[in-house]
């Protein structure tokens, strides 16, 4: 059963009662909430994600709950609980969905050290994945969306999860957080995908969530091998080109995008070394999105498809 198979009322009943166990990539999240607006937003963005059986053990128990203090803040507040702890201050209830997404990011970055985690988008074609790494504002999300429009599969818009033992990337195709002007741009690029309601005045400005492609969610247990590491940088009047990077330079740049390099220590060094060894590494300054997407797309067309899919762990 999927989240979207339940009616809004059924989902609300479950969220406010026993909770819902949802499989999101390699994680099982047990979610509770009595906030109807949040449940409706979640139902929209996670419609295709599978609901798990009650006996399955969850990685995180998350509760998005109403919080007091509305008179002080002049608007209703909510709180993000994880495994019985309250790691953040309360926040406006109207942005419960974006906040829950950030909270989930925090959970993964802080605790999922079975993976090497990079701040990057990841898309795959014919079994090979490209890691689009960079800080916020570098253009990786819009480039990721442009590649989806060219038939690439979404593994993640936020994290690359590298299994250090197997060297493969695990999908976590959560909703894509679109910010500001990119909302309209993605609407035009991906007219067949649906964008949820717009949240103005969040900590990151105006924000909306793109529902991930159904195919990406249905294949969320199917890993991919990293074949390319690309560092996009969007800039006005930049010459759009793929510039090969020295391996050591790419390693050090990717390290700066890694959330848990220090935590994993030598395991991280070895796993990243193997990744960089096997991958082609490029810098991609770009002004024109379509040209940049065409260049990345061309990388995949130069290589034969992988013959057999990787087994699921």
């Amino acid at each position, binding site marked *: 059963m999927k989240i979207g198979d339940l009616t809004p009322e059924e989902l609300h009943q479950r969220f406010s009662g026993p909770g819902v166990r949802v499989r999101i990539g390699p994680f099982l999240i047990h979610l509770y909430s009595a906030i109807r607006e949040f449940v409706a937003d979640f139902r929209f963005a996670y419609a295709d994600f599978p609901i798990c059986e009650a006996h399955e053990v969850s990685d995180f128990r998350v509760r998005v709950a109403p919080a007091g203090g509305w008179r002080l803040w002049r608007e209703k507040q909510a709180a993000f609980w994880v495994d019985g702890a309250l790691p953040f201050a309360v926040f406006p209830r109207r942005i419960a969905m974006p906040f829950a997404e950030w909270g989930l990011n925090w959970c993964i970055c802080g605790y999922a050290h079975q993976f090497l985690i990079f701040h990057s988008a990841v898309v795959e074609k014919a079994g090979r994945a490209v890691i689009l790494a960079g800080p916020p504002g570098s253009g990786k999300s819009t480039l990721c969306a442009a590649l989806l429009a060219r038939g690439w599969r979404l593994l993640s818009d936020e994290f690359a999860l590298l299994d250090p033992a197997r060297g493969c990337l695990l999908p976590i195709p959560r909703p894509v957080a679109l910010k500001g002007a990119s909302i309209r741009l993605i609407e035009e690029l991906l007219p067949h995908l649906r964008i949820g309601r717009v949240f103005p005045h969040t900590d990151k400005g105006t924000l909306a969530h793109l529902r991930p492609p159904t195919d990406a969610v249905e294949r969320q247990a199917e890993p991919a091998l990293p074949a390319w590491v690309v560092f996009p940088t969007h800039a006005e009047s930049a010459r759009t080109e793929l510039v090969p990077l*020295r391996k050591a*330079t790419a*390693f050090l740049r990717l390290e700066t995008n890694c959330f848990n390099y220090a935590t994993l220590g030598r395991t991280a060094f070895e796993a990243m070394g193997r990744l960089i060894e096997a991958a082609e590494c490029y810098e991609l300054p770009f002004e024109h999105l379509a040209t940049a997407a065409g260049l990345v797309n061309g990388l995949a067309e130069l290589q034969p498809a992988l013959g057999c899919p990787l087994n699921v762990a």
Partner: protein
Amino acid sequence: MGDGVCAVRRAPGEERIRWAVPSTNLLAWRIWDDDFLVYNTASGQTHHLNLLAGEALRSLEVEPAQTRELVRRLAHEFEIAEDSPPLQMIDRLIHELDELGLIAPSTA
């Protein structure tokens, strides 16, 4: 590691020090062309070394050496004279590797 303008003055008796990679420093390496990446398990730090520094550290990892011996080894490795400009920087190089905690005077 520089062009020779910042050579480090050698302290009296320093030429007799045998430099070594401490046994607590378990080093992991990645070498691509002339770029050396080394991970020091003791400090948790990753260092990017150039060709001369990388070969010097690898040599000391295999066997500790006094400065003069290290120069001899590197001259042989690179097929250059012992007094060639890169090797005139050896004191500064050793000083930097020592500062990074990658090498230390050998106590053996």
